[in-house]
């Protein structure tokens, strides 16, 4: 799925840089944390929003799987662990890989690192793929 096809709009779009495939069912997304408007005070991304970032990255990677044009939604988080909250100006790399799938549900393992390669967060997100592409943006 291209970045333009992601249904989320700013300020709720967190995955906003290049998407590349790194292997079967795996991909890498980049995000830049901007100041103000996205998270808690000062633009810091809270743990829940880091989870949303992982989910958007997973959706971008899932969208690149064979079934283009299908939307999806975040169905669950598990084992979410935050080393530190991402700060404004942080350039984050989110690596996602398929952990398993059953029918429309796909579970991804995700890890978030900063520009220096230090771990920021990790966890799993479950994305449920929709039946058809959305007609309008969310």
């Amino acid at each position: 799925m291209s970045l333009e096809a992601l249904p989320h709009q700013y300020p709720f779009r967190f995955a906003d840089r290049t998407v590349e495939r790194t292997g079967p069912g795996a991909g890498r997304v980049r995000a830049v944390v901007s100041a103000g408007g996205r998270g808690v005070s000062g633009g810091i991304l809270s743990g829940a929003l880091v989870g949303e970032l992982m989910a958007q990255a997973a959706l971008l990677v899932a969208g690149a799987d064979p079934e283009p044009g299908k939307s999806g939604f975040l169905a669950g988080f598990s084992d979410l662990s935050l080393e530190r909250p991402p700060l404004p100006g942080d350039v984050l790399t989110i690596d996602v890989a398929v952990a398993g799938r059953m029918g429309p549900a796909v579970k991804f393992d995700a890890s978030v690192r900063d520009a220096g390669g230090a771990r920021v967060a990790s966890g799993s997100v479950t994305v449920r793929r929709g039946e058809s592409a959305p007609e309008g943006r969310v």
Partner: protein
Amino acid sequence: MNARDDLKQRVKSLIVRQLKLEIDPATIRDEAPLFGDASDGLGLDSIDALELVLGMEKEFGIKVQDEEVGVKAFASVDALCDFIRQKAA
């Protein structure tokens, strides 16, 4: 306890552990449907099915190839045990 009962107990424990259910595994009836209406069984959903697939792989080293296979295998604890025994044979 014989091998069949031991397998049932392992499967029930897996279901509770993997899905983080707050119930005693022993209360899960062998023949009760795992999915669908909660009044008759556990009322699990498709996301739970995915978690069980991952749990099966980890606990028994068994892969569930696709949804069609999964629907039959996860019909009940009895069905799941039959599936595991088939795969192990």
